[in-house]
């Protein structure tokens, strides 16, 4: 495959998010402008201007009209996806690290970092249908975990909130009361900071990536460890294929030591693993820095075939019956399922899989 390189950001990428249909891709970076791209050809649609700090995370509503971004400028902003207009700003007293819309887009969970004596917190905000009616009141605030909470997402039916962060513990909270329901034990849990968390397409299980060079697959309801994927690099980003039993891990050596070593030593490939067998399938190279963000196109296998066969083309005579059935030119685009990766190098790489990807055997 020939990946599409998107160089819209001047600083390292932090997060990538497809909309539900998988035709738009929102990228967040440490520069202040989240950017939206067409996911098929990588064309830039627009940028959302207004943040004054690194943007750590974002989410797109189900109807692809509302974008929410969390930024280190201690704010979370709501945007109109289409126009780039700022709709609302939630202000916090510490940097916002992650956001996630609930099912139904009525609620959003926002995590904030520990900062200047303020402890980290998980905030639940209700999202109004009409942005003009939007209020900044928190429905629920959960505090407790020490250190940064790198990611918090909604559990099934919005009944729970799953959080993970610097203390390497995964916690499941009741989203109504804020009570701690379950937490991972040190025996089975990660040994180091959890950097990323992503839910499966149906939400039944989720995957966490950690700096302890592993990724773990968990059951959403019971928080039992299902699988562990061991790798030889710190994991910064994880993604799960919506189609196949594939898991992608991205990462690489610490950004501070990248310039001191050869790029091959950095292990900046995105690694594909078989979800069930926990075996490595392959690696996709390309980035010059560690991968910070990974996303799979949720669209599934989209089959687009454009066949243009020139049956005849000859001066003077029409000879086309001779050429019937003979294809002169056929552009077959198949299975445009794609995944994208964003790296410390500031590039987003959009990979459309080759057809043989779908028939990989271990």
């Amino acid at each position: 495959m020939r990946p599409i390189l998107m160089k819209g950001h001047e600083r390292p990428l932090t997060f990538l998010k497809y909309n539900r249909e998988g035709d738009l891709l929102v990228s967040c970076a440490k520069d202040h402008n989240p950017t939206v791209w067409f996911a098929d050809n990588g064309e830039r649609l627009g940028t959302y201007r207004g943040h004054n700090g690194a943007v750590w995370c974002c989410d797109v509503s189900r109807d692809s009209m509302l974008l929410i971004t969390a930024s280190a400028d201690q704010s979370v902003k709501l945007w109109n996806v289409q126009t780039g207009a700022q709709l609302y700003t939630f202000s916090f007293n510490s940097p916002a690290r992650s956001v996630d819309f609930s099912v139904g887009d009525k609620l959003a969970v926002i995590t904030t970092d520990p900062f200047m004596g303020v402890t980290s917190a998980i905030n639940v905000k209700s999202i109004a249908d009409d942005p003009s009616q939007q209020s900044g009141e928190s429905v629920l605030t959960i505090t407790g975990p020490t250190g940064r909470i790198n990611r918090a997402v909604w559990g099934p039916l919005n009944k729970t909130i799953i959080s993970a962060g610097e203390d390497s513990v995964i916690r499941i909270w009741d989203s109504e009361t804020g009570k701690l329901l379950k937490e991972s034990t040190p025996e089975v849990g990660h040994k180091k900071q959890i950097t990323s968390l992503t839910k499966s397409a149906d939400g039944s299980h989720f995957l966490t990536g950690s700096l302890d060079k592993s990724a773990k697959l968990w059951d959403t309801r019971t928080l039992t460890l299902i699988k562990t994927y061991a790798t030889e690099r710190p994991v910064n980003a994880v993604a799960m294929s919506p189609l196949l039993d594939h898991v992608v891990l991205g990462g690489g050596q610490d950004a501070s030591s990248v310039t001191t070593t050869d790029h091959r030593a950095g292990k900046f490939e995105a690694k594909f693993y078989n979800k069930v067998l926990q075996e490595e399938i392959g690696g996709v190279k390309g980035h010059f820095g560690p991968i910070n963000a990974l996303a799979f196109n949720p669209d599934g296998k989209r089959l687009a075939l454009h066949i243009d066969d020139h049956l005849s083309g000859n001066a003077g005579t029409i000879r086309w019956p001779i050429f019937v059935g003979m294809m002169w030119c056929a552009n077959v685009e198949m299975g445009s399922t794609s995944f994208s990766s964003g790296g410390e190098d500031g590039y987003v790489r959009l990979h459309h899989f080759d057809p043989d990807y779908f028939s990989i055997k271990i």
Partner: protein
Amino acid sequence: MSVDKSAKPSKLRWGELDEDDGEDLDFLLPPKQVIGPDENGIKKVIEYKFNDDGNKVKITTTTRVRKLAKARLSKRAVERRNWAKFGDAVHEEVGSRLTMVSTEEILLERPRAPGTKAEESKIAGDNLAQLGKGGAVLMVCRACGKKGDHWTSRCPYKDLAQPTETFIDKPAATETAMATSGATKGAYVPPSLRAGAERTVGSDMRRRNEENSVRVTNLSEDTREPDLHELFHTFGPVSRVYVAIDQKTGVSRGFGFVNFVNKEDAERAINKLNGYGYDNLILRVEWATPRSN
């Protein structure tokens, strides 16, 4: 041009046409026609052109546009496709090239190509099995003399027991070295001749290199050791391949040596490859004659 226009195209004489060579005469042609695509997806484009001889030709291009599978594209996604650009994307410079297709073909790199590694180890196993069958024990430790257990470099007894021959040689070597160093003080002494150096190594290596050694001459300059190995390994296990390379120029000197594990293999290789055309040169393959010193 203006003259042409005032004159009616139909009355244009060919003689005049030849005079203004290279002028665009397309206005003389009937307009381009596009028919279809019809319900069968057949699209016809009829164009008229002057060919090189100045004759008018009709070009009919028939194209069939087929939609084999419906792209599962939601209506709203199609709508979004037509959204106006906003933010920085509005005044994007033409040459900014934010989006590029990688010039490099990136493949999903398998940790190992399916089946390859297993095969390789199988071949290696075969080789060893073959050796065992042939009765020749390849793996002889030169440090402790044990056969078939480990290689010299991996000898676990290397540090414990010095090989007897070096023990005997050593004092003599030290003596001579001291003598020479006394005689020519300050002159360069190569490491191999210095006090304490193992003198036997050289001769030992040479002896080893002469076992079943085949000399290959008239090699082309581009031939490298892997090439020779590829050429010779079909005859049997090869223990060493060497191509003489000019140290100054780095160019092959046109000859090399191949050592076989089994003498019969070497013999077969000589019989087969002597006079063999390789890289447009005719190889000469023969037994390597022991160095005369």
